[in-house]
């Protein structure tokens, strides 16, 4: 693996000088104050898989990296502002906004992103943050559910994520969540589609390597939702999963499905210890 990677890198340097090697030792401090952990020892449940977990930010080119260091440069922050407007906007039959029940988002939502997906005792199942947002909208506000990967959902997730920036991802994998976590793990290692590739084929066996023009990361979601320069929009975790599964020439799962919730739980837990970075910037 190492040797192969080295030979390949040498070859690429010779043949395609257009590549800018990302600096894997770079440090990310947002707004000169939030120090992000972008590299740390892997959680015990990753023994044998990864020794160290690396944020997707480390794999991006210098220019993309620097956009994330300051909220004035981060194009994703516009959506956080929009999410803030939504937070205070009354919607639905009950005449309520998010703020009616949760008050100040900075207080009530701090630490939330770091722990989701999370077992929900009342519901008796693992819930994603998106599902909780829709539960509030439908059951408590009498409003319509947002589409699972819609722009409105993504910007609400962005607003909530920002309240946890710099806190370590800390997703629980034991207790009642254990079964779903195991299902997600199984999915991560299952090869799908006509290309017969699993998440691990790209994000565990080949992180750090180029696949065409892309620099493969470990596929963590600590930076989600991410702002993608490619389409100038936010991407949610299930939106990204869908794209990656499709790229194996497979039938994808539906965003919000139990399958993708299980996969999100597992993928999120692989990033335990990394800082919550959302909204991060990607190409």
């Amino acid at each position, binding site marked *: 693996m190492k040797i*192969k*990677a080295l*030979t*390949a*890198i040498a*070859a*690429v340097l*010779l*043949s*395609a000088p*257009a*590549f800018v090697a990302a600096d894997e030792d770079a440090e990310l401090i947002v707004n000169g104050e939030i120090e992000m952990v972008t590299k740390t020892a892997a959680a015990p449940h990753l023994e044998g898989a990864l020794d160290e977990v690396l944020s997707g930010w480390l794999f991006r080119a210098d220019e993309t990296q620097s956009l994330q260091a300051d909220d004035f440069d981060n194009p994703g922050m516009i959506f956080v502002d929009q999410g803030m407007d939504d937070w205070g906007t009354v919607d639905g039959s009950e005449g309520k906004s998010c703020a009616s029940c949760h008050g100040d988002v900075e207080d009530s939502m701090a630490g939330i992103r770091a722990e989701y997906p999370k077992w929900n005792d009342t519901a008796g199942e693992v819930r994603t943050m998106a599902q909780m947002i829709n539960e509030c909208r439908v059951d408590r506000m009498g409003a319509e559910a947002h589409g699972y990967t819609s722009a409105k959902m993504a910007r609400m997730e962005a607003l909530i994520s920002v309240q946890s920036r710099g806190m370590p991802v800390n997703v629980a994998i034991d207790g009642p969540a254990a079964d779903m976590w195991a299902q997600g793990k199984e999915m991560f290692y*299952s*090869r*799908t*589609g*006509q*290309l*017969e*590739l699993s998440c691990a*084929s*790209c994000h565990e*066996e*080949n992180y750090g*390597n*180029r*696949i*065409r*023009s892309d620099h*493969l990361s470990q596929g963590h979601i600590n930076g989600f939702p991410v702002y993608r320069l490619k389409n100038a929009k936010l991407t949610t975790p299930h939106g990204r999963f*869908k794209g990656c*599964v*499709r*790229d*194996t*020439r*497979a*039938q*994808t799962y539906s965003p919000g499905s139990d399958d993708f919730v299980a996969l999100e739980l597992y993928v999120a837990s692989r990033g335990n210890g990394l800082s919550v970075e959302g909204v991060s910037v990607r190409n």
Partner: protein
Amino acid sequence: MRLTTITLAATLTVAGVATAGTVAPGDVAFDEYGAVEMSLSGAAGDAVNGEKIMVTKSKGNCVACHAVSKLSYAPFHGEVGPQLDWAGDTWSQAELRGILANAKKTFEGSVMPAFYKVDGFVRPGKGYTGKAADGPLDPLLSAQDIEDVIAFLMTLKEE
């Protein structure tokens, strides 16, 4: 499948090559090391077309994973697989045919896709649409495409 066969037949007629017939994906005979002796199309390969297939995204897209100095005009070569600059020295035609048809028979557990295989997939999709496949799958490359790529790979030798 039908399309592939028709295109293939057309190519062969135009080239005026007599053919012993195409080996179907399910009938490819791999030896114990994963090599395949017999031409998949029954015809010789065309290295010029093989080169095109290697750099074309909708065809082999081999450079997505492999760097090849001779193809440096095509941007962005990958690092997932080994550099192929000396593939023609390293491997025989039969070995390359096996690697292309189904690399997992040569390299156990390889991430390299099988280019001449049509079944045994989990959740096979309809190309890159993300939808379920709605009929039998075509192999990623046709028998003649694979022979063409092999012909090109055989030109990759140290001078």
